[in-house]
């Protein structure tokens, strides 16, 4: 139903007939399947809009856009940064036809938009399969599909304060490798006052998906495929061990206190000695806490037996730009050409974007760039990263579940068994409701 030519009178007439309102709501916004077609350099001027969040990062895309303009003077790339409420804007704008040409993606919303055909597939001529697998080897192309380019990989890192290790009589060059060594080391570094309240915790945790990492280290998987069906595999001995790890940290070894500040502040203010966290934390300490940053060491996370495990923890691919629907054809084509330029030619640009977040670069040639291999932190990431594994799409409801389970254990003081059972049943509910998508 064409809505482009609604004039005021018709509009009011329809408003009065409220019953038609529903039909109107359903019909607004054209949804057309746009098939990517390779076009030669653009003859008329066109503007490609790119939306994202976090101005510092989006500035890097703007710089890439400016570089692109040198090659294609008729194409102007305009990058806009909005904040986290950004997704409300995107989800309102795209169906209405007022969205951007390209959009920075985030996993949870990417899958939703893809299932509603809001993103345009990568041009198979510009990005053939062989190219993608060769140049972006760590990316799970099968799980994510060919609708968005990867930006970089988020790994799980173990950070420790070398100075505090020394003070506790430990060797700062030999961080703990096994869970047992880890418990002992953190106990030595924890300080408490007369009441037993911690004044410095041995360990801080990144409250994002704590259980997965440890579960994976034990070889567990939180999801199973049974034929065509997805089955929750939460209540397993491996997950039990993971939860018990945290309970022990707090209650048995007393090295961790939930009341402590968020891990970036805790480590930065010397309120915590060690931490297991996602890589981006490194960027925060480097820029905001330079004196403490100088004291920090980074290593692979401790595993149960100290063996180098491919699953040091959960690793996920951070997504880059995708092309969206509902824009004029010439704009979309220009946008796809820019995408092609950025991801095939602009290696420096890609490196800048992934580095600002502490990510391991996605492009194979960047993996061997001296800026990466020469930096101990990034080199560590590269070492950890092969096998990037988001077993499931971490949707909003699923991450909320993680917070709930943590609270059950430590606020409600429920038992591990009870929490496991609850986690299992909730996960089953979410799978049925379609809130969890498996990548494998």
């Amino acid at each position, binding site marked *: 139903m064409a809505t482009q030519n609604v004039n005021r009178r018709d509009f009011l007439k329809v408003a009065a007939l409220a019953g038609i309102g529903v039909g109107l709501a359903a019909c607004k916004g054209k949804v057309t399947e746009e098939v990517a077609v390779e076009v030669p350099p653009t003859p008329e001027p066109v503007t490609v809009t790119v939306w994202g969040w976090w101005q510092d990062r989006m500035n890097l895309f703007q710089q890439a856009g400016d570089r692109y303009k040198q090659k294609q003077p008729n194409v102007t790339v305009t990058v806009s940064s909005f904040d986290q409420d950004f997704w*409300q*804007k995107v989800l309102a704008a795209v169906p209405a036809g007022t969205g951007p040409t390209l959009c920075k993606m985030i996993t949870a919303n990417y899958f939703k938009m893809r299932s509603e055909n809001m993103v345009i597939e990568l041009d198979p001529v510009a990005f053939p399969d062989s190219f993608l697998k060769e140049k972006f080897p760590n990316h799970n192309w099968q799980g994510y599909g060919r609708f968005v380019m990867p930006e970089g990989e988020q790994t799980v890192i173990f950070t420790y304060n070398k100075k505090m290790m020394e003070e506790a009589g430990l060797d700062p060059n030999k961080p703990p490798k096994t869970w047992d060594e880890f418990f002992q080391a953190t106990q030595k570094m924890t300080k408490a006052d007369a009441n037993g309240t911690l004044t410095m915790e041995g360990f801080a945790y990144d409250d994002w998906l704590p259980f997965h990492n440890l579960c994976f280290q034990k070889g567990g998987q939180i999801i199973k495929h049974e034929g065509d069906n997805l089955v929750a595999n939460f209540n397993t001995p491996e997950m039990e061990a993971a939860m018990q790890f945290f309970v022990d940290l707090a209650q048995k070894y007393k090295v961790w206190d939930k009341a402590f500040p968020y891990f970036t502040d805790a480590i930065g203010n010397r309120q915590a000695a060690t931490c297991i966290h996602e890589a981006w934390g490194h960027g925060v300490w480097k820029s905001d806490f330079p004196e403490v940053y100088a004291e920090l060491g980074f290593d692979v996370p401790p595993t149960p037996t100290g063996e180098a495990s491919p699953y040091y923890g959960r690793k996920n691919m951070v997504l880059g730009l995708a092309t969206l629907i509902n824009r004029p054809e010439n704009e979309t084509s220009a946008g796809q050409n820019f995408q092609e330029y950025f991801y095939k030619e602009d290696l420096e640009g890609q490196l800048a974007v992934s580095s600002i977040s502490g990510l391991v670069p996605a492009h194979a040639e960047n993996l061997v760039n001296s800026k990466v291999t020469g930096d101990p932190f990034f080199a560590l990431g590269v070492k950890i990263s092969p096998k990037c594994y988001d077993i499931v799409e971490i949707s909003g409801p699923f991450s909320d579940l993680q917070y709930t389970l943590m609270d059950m254990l430590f606020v409600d003081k429920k038992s591990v068994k009870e929490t496991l059972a609850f986690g299992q049943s909730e996960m089953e509910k979410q799978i049925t409701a379609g809130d969890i998508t498996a990548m494998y």
Partner: protein
Amino acid sequence: MSNAFAFRTLKKLHLLNYIIVGLVAATMVLPFLWMVLTSFKMRGEILSFPPSFFPKVWTIENYIDAASRLNVLRIYWNTLSVAVTKTFIQIYLSALLGFVFGKYDFKYKEIIFYFILATMILPFEVYMIPLYRMMVAAKWGDSYLALIVPMMFSAYATFLMRQFMFTIPNDLLDAARMDGAGEWFIFHRLVVPLCKPVLATLVSFYFMWNWNDFLWPLIVISNKEKMMLPVALSGFVAEHGTDYGLIMAGAVMATLPVVVVFVIFQRYVVQGISLTGLK
């Protein structure tokens, strides 16, 4: 300065008043003060623990950073012009509506009033998306019309104006009518001046809300040239929001005009209303 309470005796009571009110005002202002001071601190100092109250080193780097990220003058102008226009229209229309509901009687008056009042109850998010699609269909996407028109009337202000209209004695209006004054004259020349305290208060609040309005301008405006201040500033809240200095500098920049407007309008508040007309 005559007002409802004219204490002439008992200075003691005043002192007690001052103390209590002063304490309360101090708690009100403390966080705000901290916000301002933080905006002048350097990054390392903000995040250090224990946190300092006064900056050890004063710096304006946050403000420079904020200003350089925004086209400050343009954005101030955008936000100012939209806020002023919206506020004026909203207050005027609400005063008119409040007057009619408060002073006139007509069939269905109560139902219509509840009809209007009911629109206050739903959270904005609920009708935001259909409203947005309407704006797009009317070709107002990315324009200031979409910011102003859907907000022209305000149930809240109408409600408040109506309540105040009740306190204006009908005798005054009837006297004017008997002298031959028309309704428009009565409204503009008699009623509105009597409502100055309320109007000044409402203007202060509505200007503040319109200035700080975030979600709707975020959805509607995409063009950088037309951007509004709160939206532009919120781009600062980085993924992990640790640049407190920048955030606070932005917040101060956003708040200052509102404070100025408040100060100006409080001067116009008539201190105490004496209906000398009826003596």
